[in-house]
Structures are given as C-alpha cells and as structure tokens.
C-alpha cells in the first residue's frame, strides 16, 4: 500500500507542478520567469532527443542543426519579410521540417554511430552555410530588431510572460504529442524496438516507418524551440544559434542523467540541471567535465538514470505510458505491479 500512496502523491505533485508552471508569470518575479522560459525551451529539446535516442534508436549529435535553422528561419520571416512574429514561429518549425526531409534521406543510409556523426556533419554544414547569409549578418550574426521584440508586449513584464507562455505551450504540446505517440500503435512498436530490435521486426513492427516518423516529427519542435530561444537571446549568430554545447551536449547529459528511454527522464534531467546550474556555472571548464563524468558513471551503474533509481522506489511510471493487460486477462487475482514493470529492457 505504501508505495502506491507515494506514487499517488508523486503524481499529485507533478500535476500541481504543471498547474504552477501554467500560471508562472502570475506567481513568480521577472528573473524567475526568464529562467523558466529557458527551462521550457531546454525541456523541449530534451524531450525530442530522448524520443529519438531513447525510443527510435536514432542517436543524433546534430540536434543543434534544427535549433539553428529555426532561429534563422524565424529571423527571416519576422525581420526580413516582416511577417507576423507569432506566425513566424510555426513557420520556422516548418522550415526545420523541410530541411529534415533531405537530411533524413541522406543520413538514414548510415546506421547507429555512423548516423550519429552523419547528423553532426549536416549540422556543421548548415552552420557554415548560415555564416554565408549576408542578410542574416554573415559570420558575426545580427540582433533581432526592437520592433519584433516589442510586438510580443510593450511592457517588459507582459513581454516576458508572453514569451514564457509560448515556451510553456511548446513544451506542453511536445509532452502531449510524445505521450500520445507512445500510447499509439507506433509507440508500442517503438517501445518494442527499444527493448529488442530484431524481436520487434520479427513480429511485424515497421521499424523504418517509425524511425522516419520520429526523425521528421522532432524537427518542427526543435525549429520552433529555436525561434523561441531567439526571442530570449535577441541575437542570431552561427556559432550561438547552432551551438552544439548548448543545444546538443547539455541536452544529452540531461537526458542521460535523468533517465534515457523514459517519459520522465528528460523532465527530471532538465530540472536537476537547472537546480545544479547555479552552483556549476562558476566552475568554468570543470562544469562540463563534471557533467560528462557523471553521465559516464550513470551509464555504467544505472543505465536508466535518476528516474530508473526513483522508479524502483515508486514501482510504477509517474505518467502511465505502458498499456497493461486487464486483470481478467492477466489471470492473477492481484496484478503484481513491480514484476510487470521490471520487464523493460
């Protein structure tokens, strides 16, 4: 009974957290709203990387490509074409999607680690190409015009709140989309694939289709996150908009530490990262050395990260993704939750 109770408390806390986040601009001061906006943007990137690496078996090291493309496309629509800035955000996602299609056609010729580095090559090429766009400020980049910033709200508090809700909305949609995807037929196939690729293929899971869907599906989210990040940074520049450290390395470490291949992992990893960051930021180069070493230790000890450890105590997922056989079908009078939940991987 006790573990069940803890689980319900954990779920209640999670739901309370979401409500608090939805109302954050009313509850917190400007500095915290800025921090939370950044948190939501990073969370979107973490959810997307986890979907690819944790479920679709596509480890990308080139995720920053789509963040950068989104940033540049947003600037193009909003600043150069002078289109509606709100409309420019989904359009930035669309451009990221359009770039992802030929990229997928190319890098899917490679497998596993080769695919990982293939995505990196594409990201590198896109960053170099972005530096050649003179209208976007060339190699040194340019600032987002004040008029675009003001169109998100004349007063600072109003603007910060609006940008926050954009980031929160994107994170919420990303979470819901992932949830429904993983609950769907495709998601069951992906979970089967995560656990045993040959086995999944043998029982008829269309691996290629699921992979393509995930790869193309994450691109617009990354692109829109790139647009929203540009609204926070107020600048575009090839090395910053396409930053491998910010949009790929930190994300990978967050997800690995939080728990790869679980719905909760990227959320926990990003929370832990933001809690630790203020202590780590002063360490300079040691910051990344510590995160990297910690990630290796996590992989060696508990592959499923912090969430893997917590879940042992809770005995069930915070967000119930897995389908369970009904009690009648199960045959047992009392379904044994801990046994049913440990057969993953």
């Amino acid at each position, binding site marked *: 009974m006790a573990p069940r109770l803890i689980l319900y408390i954990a779920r209640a806390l999670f739901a309370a957290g979401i409500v608090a986040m939805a109302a954050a601009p009313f509850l917190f001061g400007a500095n915290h709203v800025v921090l939370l906006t950044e948190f939501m943007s990073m969370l979107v990137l973490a959810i997307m990387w986890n979907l690819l690496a944790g479920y679709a078996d596509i*480890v990308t090291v080139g995720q920053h490509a789509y963040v950068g493309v989104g940033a540049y496309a947003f600037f193009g629509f909003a600043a150069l074409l002078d289109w509606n800035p709100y409309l420019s955000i989904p359009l930035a996602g669309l451009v990221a999607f359009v770039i992802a299609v030929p990229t997928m056609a190319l890098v899917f010729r490679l497998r*596993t*680690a*080769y695919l990982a580095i293939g995505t990196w*090559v594409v990201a590198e*090429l896109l960053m*170099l190409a972005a530096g050649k766009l003179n209208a976007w400020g060339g190699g040194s980049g340019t600032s987002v015009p004040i008029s675009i910033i003001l169109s998100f709200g004349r007063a600072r508090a109003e603007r910060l709140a609006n940008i926050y809700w954009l980031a929160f909305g994107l994170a919420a949609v990303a979470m819901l989309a992932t949830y429904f995807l993983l609950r769907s037929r495709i998601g069951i196939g992906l979970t089967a694939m995560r656990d045993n690729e040959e086995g999944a293929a043998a029982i008829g899971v269309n691996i290629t289709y699921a992979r393509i869907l995930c790869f193309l599906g994450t691109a617009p989210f990354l692109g829109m996150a790139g647009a929203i990040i540009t609204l926070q940074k107020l600048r575009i520049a090839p090395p910053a908009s396409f930053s491998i450290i910010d949009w790929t390395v930190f994300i990978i470490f967050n997800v690995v530490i939080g728990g790869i291949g679980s719905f909760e992992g990227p959320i926990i990893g990003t929370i832990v990262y933001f809690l630790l960051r203020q202590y780590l930021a002063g360490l300079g*180069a040691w910051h990344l050395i510590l995160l990297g070493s910690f990630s290796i230790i996590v992989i060696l000890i508990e592959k499923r990260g912090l969430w893997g450890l917590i879940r042992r105590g809770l005995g069930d997922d915070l967000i119930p993704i897995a389908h369970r056989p009904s009690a009648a079908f199960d045959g047992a009078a009392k379904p044994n939750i801990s046994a049913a939940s440990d057969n993953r991987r």
Partner: protein
Amino acid sequence: MTAVWANQLLQGVMLGGLYTLFAIGLSLSAGVMRFVNIAHGDFIVLTCYALLLLTTLLGLNPVVATLIVLPVAFLFGFGLQRFLLQRVVGENVLLVILVTFALSIIIENGLLGGFGADPQKVSGGWMETETVALGDGINVGLFQIVTFVAAVALVAVLDLLLYRTNIGAKIRAVSDDVAAANLIGLSSVRIYAIAMGITFVTIGIAAGFVSIWTNFDPASGPTRLLVAFEVIVMGGLGSLWGSLAGGIVLGLAQAVGGQFDIAWQIMAGHIVFLIVLAIRPQGLFPKY
C-alpha cells in the same frame, strides 16, 4: 595559372595523406569493434598536447617525442578498452556512443582548463620549411611528402598486420563473429583491447604529423573526428586502402573549394562527402 592549380591539387593530395592518418585508427576500431569512437579526434588533439609538452619542456626532437608517445598510446588504448569501453560494448550501441561522447567533452574541457583556448603548434624545425621543386613552378613541402608517404606506409603495414599475421587473423575472427570467436577459445576481451591499443598507436602517429602540420586548440578534436569519419565512409567502411582514396578525395575537395574562397574549403569537403553518400553509400571501395 596552371601552376597555381597544379600546386593546389598536389596540396590536396598531400592533405589527403594527413586525413588518411586521422582515419586509419577510426577505420580499425569501427571495423573491429563495430562502434565509432566519438572521442577519436579529441584523442588526437590530446596526444598533440602531450607532444607539445615533451618538445617544449624536455626540449625533445618531435620525432623522438612521437616515438616515446607511441608505446604509451598503445597502453592507454588497451586500458581504455579493457576497463571502460568493454563494459558497455556489445550490449547496446547507444551506450558506447554516449560514453565516448562524454569522454570527448571531458577531454576538450580538460585541455581548455589546462592549456587555455590559444592555438598551439609543435615546431618541426627544418623539416617543415624544406620544399621540393618539381619544375614549372610546382613546389611541395618536404614535410607534406613525408606525411603522405607515412600514410601509404601505415595503410600497407596495417593491411599486412590484419591479413598476414596471427594476431591479425584473431582480430578479424573476433570482428566477424564475437560469439564464434569466444567459442573456439579466443579471448575477445583481450583482442578488442589489443585492437584498441593498435588504434591508439595510429592516433599517436597521426598526432605526430598533424601537430607539426597545423595549429591545434582544445576545440579542434571534433573537426578531426568529422574528417576521419567522412574519409572512412567515403572510402568504404572497413577498407584500409579505401581510407587512402577517401582521404585524397576529401583533401582534393577542400583544396579545390579553398581555391575559390577560403571559407569554402571546409564546406566543400562536407558537400562532397554528402554527394558521395547520396550516390554511393557503400563508399568508393567497399570491403564486401
């Protein structure tokens, strides 16, 4: 004009030799252990810094310094495979990618903390200033020629090692089928470690040449990795002689791109790589 182009193309071929040196180790480890070491480029840079210390602090000749580093590199590679990578290899490719990726970030930031972000270079003395005149205004640096010859020689030596020696046969057996190799009494763990040791010797050799050829800084590892990766994919995975061809193609692409505009040099390399991947995904000289 012809001489300008001839010089540039010759430079491209020589650069291809250097790129082959980067790629040989990656080709070997990827071919045998079936994973790509994402920290490959960073290990090359790490070794460059070791050479920098040996040549500046102890005043050693760079050739002597490289020869001292090679056995250490073998032991390092052996230990890395045996005590860290072996724990995650085979089970799930994802984990090896993540561990080597984390290693890459640790090395980059460790070097940044230890040496700062300034570009460094090992001085090759007279070796890097001598040029050989081939007539008609075509000149090529002696060091560039030596690098290219070394790349060809290293490919030939590894080819002999893998296909003509006892340990080579064992390495190929483990690479073809780990379970079967274990079944007939080969210790795959030990053979993997030896293969990684040999990989690190090639990393030491590559570092010896690149540390004199050009500048390096803590962040130059990923560039070396991408070069090595493009070379082995273009050459055909697992094909050693293919790496030489891939290296020359990449070197030529960069030389031609650089002739139009210096900023196009790196981009041209990536673009040619993606074109080769699109029209010939199995590489120029596939092993199978």
